[in-house]
C-alpha cells in the first residue's frame, strides 16, 4: 500500500514531499496499529487537521469493510459443500507458506543480534507452549530493549 500512497500523494498530487513521506513511513512502522491506517491518519492530519485525519482514517478502512463483508457472507453460505471445504483446506496450506516465509523475511530485518534472537525465541515458546498473552511479551521485550540499548546510541 505504501508505493500506492507515494504515487498518489507525492508524485501526482504533490500534497507531501518525498522526505515527509519517508518520515511518515518510519513513524507509522514504529507506532502501534496497522501501518496503512497510521499513514492515512498522518497524511490526513498534515493536510487538513483533525477532520482530515478523521475522514482519511475512515476512508482507508471502508473498502476493507465492504469487500470483506461480501466475501465473508459468500463463504459462510457455501462452506458446508465438500468441494468448498477441500478448497479451503488447500488454501490453508498456502497460508502456512505465507506465514513461514514471513517469519524468515521479517527476522532478517528485525533480529540484529543474539539478544534479539533470544527475545524472539522466548516469545515463541511463551505463546506456543505456555499460551501467555502476546501483549505481555510485547511489554517485556519493550523493557528488555530499553534496558539493553536505552543507554547507548543506536544507528
Amino acid at each position, binding site marked *: *500500500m505504501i508505493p500506492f500512497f507515494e504515487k498518489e500523494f507525492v508524485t501526482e498530487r504533490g500534497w507531501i514531499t518525498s522526505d515527509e513521506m519517508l*518520515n511518515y513511513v518510519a*513513524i*507509522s512502522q*514504529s*507506532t*502501534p*496499529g*496497522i*501501518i*496503512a491506517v497510521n499513514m492515512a*491518519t*498522518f497524511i490526513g*492530519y498534515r493536510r487538513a487537521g*483533525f477532520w482530515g*485525519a478523521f475522514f482519511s*482514517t475512515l476512508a482507508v*478502512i471502508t*473498502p*476493507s*469493510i465492504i*469487500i*470483506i*463483508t461480501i*466475501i465473508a457472507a459468500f*463463504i459462510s453460505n457455501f462452506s458446508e459443500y465438500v*468441494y468448498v471445504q477441500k478448497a*479451503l*483446506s*488447500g*488454501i*490453508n*496450506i*498456502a*497460508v*502456512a*507458506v*505465507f506465514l513461514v*516465509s*514471513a*517469519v524468515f523475511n521479517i527476522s532478517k530485518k*528485525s*533480529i*540484529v543480534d543474539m539478544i534479539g534472537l533470544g*527475545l*524472539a525465541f*522466548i*516469545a*515463541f*515458546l511463551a*505463546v*506456543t507452549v505456555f499460551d501467555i498473552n*502476546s*501483549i505481555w*511479551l510485547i511489554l517485556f521485550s519493550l523493557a*528488555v*530493549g*530499553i534496558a*539493553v540499548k*536505552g543507554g547507548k546510541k543506536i544507528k
Partner: protein
Amino acid sequence: MNIFFICLYFFLTGLFAIGGGLAAIPIMEQFFVNKGVILPGLFYNMIAVSESTPGPIGVNMATYIGFENFGVLGGIVATLALTLPSFIIILMIARSYSAIQNNRLVKSGLYGIRAAVCGLIASAAASVLSATIFTFDKFLEYPSILTLFDFRQLLVFCVIFALYKIFKKHPIWYVLFGAICGIVFL
C-alpha cells in the same frame, strides 16, 4: 463473547500490534481462536482472504472476525475498534513527530519489540502448520516419522513454498493454486 469484549480485544490488538498487520495475527489468534470464538480452520481461511483482497491485512481480519460473530454491524465496529488506538496515537504525535522518531527510548524499545514480534509470528506459523501438514494426534499414538506428517499436505506445502519463492507473485495466485490442489488432491 459479547460485542463489548470483541471491541475491547480489537482495541488491544490495535494498541499492541507494532510493526504492521502481520504482528496483529498472533494477537488476534490468542484472543479469538484460543478462547474458542473462532475455529482454527476458519481463522486460517480468514488470513487467506485478508491476504488476497485489497486493503491492509489487519483491517481485513478485524472486519471478518466482527462479521462472523455479529454480522455487518459487528464487522464495522470491530474495524473501528482496531483503528481507534492508531488514530489517537497519531493525532497525539503528529505535531512533534521528529522528536519521537529520534528518541532513544523509542528506538531501543522498538529494537526489543521487533525481535519479539518475529517470535510471535513464528508461533502463528507453527499453529497453522500443526493444523495442516503435521498430524500430532496420530504421532502421539504411533510415534514414527510416517505418522508425523500428512504427506499429501506436506507435498502441497513444498510445491506452494517453491512457487512462492521463485515467482514472488501476489498472494491471491497461491491461494487459488492452494484451492485447486485442495479440490483435486486432498
